[in-house]
Structures are given as structure tokens and as C-alpha cells.
């Protein structure tokens, strides 16, 4: 377990130059807020769904460590344009990877696979998952017909 396993260059790139980071989204369908007060992490995720049921736009904003921010950034890229069911499945693949499984859709996860090493740092798994869990929640909120949801994690 070395620091290089954790902080790969791909991760640092996403951290330094995040993709799809924005405080608002025009015509947003859903806005979810996820926070982990115990870490001080905050994540706002906004999605817009196209008429054909695909993720038209996914943007995040928030505060947190490099892992949480970079993972959210990589996530927005990986799920862009996917239909909702597919995006949920990809989120599940990522989640399982965080619990030590081989990812079955490494190509689709794109830069997300760079986070595989995080699985070996149990306290950081939650950081890497924050964006993906917010996405899942946003999609489920959309499917319920709601437009906003807020989640607070415990330890």
C-alpha cells in the first residue's frame, strides 16, 4: 500500500482540473445534496435528462478531499450520455470495485478505474463513492418524479 496506489496521476489531474464542475445547471431536472458531516464533505450534484431518457448533463460542486473531488469529476465524464439504467449499473460496478471486486466494465468507467487502488484504504472508499452515490440518488429521485433530495451520511 503506497501513496502512489492512491494518488495516481489521473486522479491528481481530475482533482486539479475537474470536469463538469459547476455551481448550477440550466434546466436541471434534479439537484441532490450529499454531505458527510463527519468528514466535512459536501457534494451538490445536478442532472438533466434528455427526452430520450439519457443523461444530458451531469455537473457537480462541492468540497472535500482530492479523492472525492476527482472521483466525482471522473464520474461525470463516464456517465455522460448514458441512459439512466446503464448509469446506475455503472455506479454499481464502481461500488463493487470499491469493495475489492474486479470492475466488469473497466472501459466504460474510463478514468474511474484509476480509483481501484482506493479499495485498499477503507476510510477513503467513502470519499471515492461520494459522487457516484449522489448520482445514483439523483437518478432514483428523478424516477420518483422528484426534483431534489438531500442525504447525510454517518460514519
Amino acid at each position, binding site marked *: *500500500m503506497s501513496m502512489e496506489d492512491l494518488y495516481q496521476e489521473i486522479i491528481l489531474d481530475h482533482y486539479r482540473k475537474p470536469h463538469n464542475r459547476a455551481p448550477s445547471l440550466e434546466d436541471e431536472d434534479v439537484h441532490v445534496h450529499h454531505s458527510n*458531516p*463527519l*468528514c466535512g464533505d459536501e457534494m451538490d450534484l445536478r442532472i438533466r435528462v434528455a427526452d430520450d431518457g439519457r443523461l444530458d448533463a451531469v455537473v457537480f460542486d462541492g468540497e472535500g478531499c482530492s479523492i472525492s473531488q476527482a472521483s466525482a469529476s471522473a464520474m461525470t465524464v463516464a456517465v455522460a450520455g448514458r441512459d439512466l439504467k446503464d448509469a446506475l449499473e455503472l455506479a454499481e460496478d464502481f461500488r463493487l470495485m470499491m469493495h475489492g471486486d474486479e470492475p466488469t466494465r473497466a472501459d466504460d468507467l474510463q478514468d474511474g478505474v484509476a480509483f481501484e487502488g482506493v479499495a485498499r*484504504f*477503507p*476510510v*477513503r472508499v467513502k470519499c471515492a463513492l461520494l459522487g457516484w452515490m449522489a448520482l445514483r440518488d439523483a437518478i432514483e429521485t428523478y424516477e420518483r418524479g422528484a426534483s431534489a433530495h438531500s442525504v*447525510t451520511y*454517518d*460514519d
Partner: protein
Amino acid sequence: MSFDPATLRKEFPTLQREVDGRRLVYLDSAASSQTPQPVLDAMAEYYEQLRSNVERGVYRISEVATGRYEQARERLARFVGAPATDGVVFTKNVTEAINLVAYSWVRRRLGPGDALLITGMEHHANFVPWWHAAQDQGFELRVVPITDGYELDLDAARALLADGRVRFLAVAHVSNVLGTINPVDALIAMAREANPDVVTLVDGAQAAPHFPVDVAALDCDFYGVTGHKMCGPTGIGALIAKPERLEEMPPFLTGGSMILDVSVDEVTWNHPPHRFEAATPPIAEAFGLEAACDYLDAVGMEQIRTHERDLVTTFVDALRATEGVTVYGPLDAEHRSGAISFAVDGVHPHDLGAMLDGYGVCIRVGHHCAKPLMRTLGVNATARASLYLYNDTDDLAPLLDGIAAARSLFAR
């Protein structure tokens, strides 16, 4: 491997010692059990390799210690057959576990017109918290009486439940004085029949160490255990609860780790079980308790029960056959665990205890924190010998010798 107490004893350091040149015969496990080497090793591992605080440490030793602490929760859940790890709250002993329920559930929900049902053979730990809450909140305390055969009077219990006002039932799984194994499943069913919303707590302090417990099958809302009676360390116990009960409870002890957010205006409680574990928990003790569960399961809880059932029969028969000795407790071995209370004619229990000490025999004398039961028995104190997996028939002779010596000294 056959069950061999003499071999098992080798793992219990205090049992290796002598007192005045005599082998220590420990017959006080109902007060506190001995602790086997693997439990001590687990605690040493924490102190020697992983000494740090748990929860939220971002460095390795703290992460590993945290993982082990949470693993202990899982292990205990499995040990008592609890379906949900999230229902396991670590406390300092079973008394704190019961108080937690008294403060966060009973005191906030029971009031005038309500009743709480306990039994006449409860340890003070499962009596005084309810009594104190009843005083403050104005609800009624009802007590299931005991039959002449030292068992719960279920007919009387049915009558006490009949008006449907019993909203909470608290009962010992096993009496620490009489050894009686109570039919808690029947009592819980009876209470539910009278009031489907009744909430139930089983004090498992004397049960979990001695036979397989299946909390899911009992279907009680709360089950309490204490580490130091089940081959574990001092300083730890647990409340095992249905998660939905914990969800509806405000915290009891408050402080660090049990909140999500705090400002001067607002506090957001953490989710269970963390909501009920303020502050730095008993970390080394959780390591020890996990190892105790492993140890007991490796020996085999079924085998421990069988051994104790046979051994208690031998002891009770021998005591009953001894002139001047009265044994309190059920005769049916299937209904009794290894705590044997008795009296010796003409010998005060204190003198008996002191006398036995001279024979290297450790028994407990006194009221055993069960004064209401003592009143029912019509005594101030009893002598109590209690058995565990490391006892065997070798321990009987020193006990009988000491009793005989006491009788010849005092009762002539």
C-alpha cells in the same frame, strides 16, 4: 475433541495459581468469569501493535483498529444470533445497556396509566432502573411472582398482563441466584398477546455465557450481555436491539462520535448504533470480547451447555444429599443453569465463604444484588457456587469438605 475442563483450564491464568498451597477452585463465574489466554492476547495485540483511537483516523494503525472494533460488533451479533450488526451498541456492562433503554425508551414513553412488567427474580440491574423511572414518570411496576419450585409463575404473569396496560416487559433470561432458565419466549408471546405493541427486554447476562442464544428466535426488542461474565474483559457489555427500536430513540450519553452535526442552535444525531456510543469506546475491550466469542464458539456453546447441565446436576445432588444443606432453585436440570444458591444450617453465609476460602474455594455469599428475591426466599443472604466450562467434578470435593468443616466448627 472431547470436552475436557482440565485441559480447558490450562488456558485460564488465574486458575493456575494456588492459594496457601491449594489449587484455586473458582466457583464464582456468575459474578465474573475467568478470561482465557486468547482474549488477553487479543487485547495485547491492540495495545502493543495498534494503540490508537478508532473512527475517522486516516492512518494505518487507526484504520486497522477501527476495522477490528467494528468487526467485534459483527462477531457479537453473530454470537447471539442477532440479525442486524447495526443493532449492537457497545456499553461498559449490561447495567449500562439496561439504563440506556430505561432513559431513552421507557422514560420517554411510559407514564401514568402504563405498566412495566418485571419478575421477582431480577438482578438489581434489571430492577432499579425501572423502579427509578417509575418513580419519576409515574407508571406502574408489576412483578411476576415465583412459584414454590423457584420458577416464574406464568399464570400470575397472564393475570398481570390481562388489562393490556403493560407496555414494557423486562425479564432475566437466567436468574443469577436460582439458576432458573426462564421461558422468556413464552413470556414474550404472552405479553404480545395482551398488547401487540409491548416492547421487551431480556437480560442475558447469565445466559449468553452458558448456552446458545438466538436473539432472532426470541424476537425480543432488546437483549443485554456483559463481557466479563462470558470469558471477556471487564469494561464492556452490549445492548443488542432491533434497529427500528434504536431508530426511534434519542441518544442517552451524548458527546463525540454520536452526532452528525453540531451548532449552538442545532444538533443532528448520528444513526444507530453510533448514536448510542458517545466518546472513545472500550477499544481494547472490544478486541477482547471478539476473541471471547471466538473462544466460546470454538469450544462449542452446545457442549458447554451439556457439560454444565450434567455438572450442575452432580453438584445439586451432592449438596442436597449433604446434611443441613438447603438448595434454592429448580430441580429439573433442563430448567437450570450453573448458579447454585444454598444455605447451610447454623452457618452464616459469610462464615461459610471465609471457611471455603481456606480450602481455596471461591464462592459468593450475600444478596447477589437480588434483594427482592432474598425477601421472597426469607433470607438475608445465601451462599452461591456457580459453574462454568472450566469446572468439573474435581471441584466438588473441596466444596463439600469446606462445608463439612464449617458445619463442624459452627453448627455444633
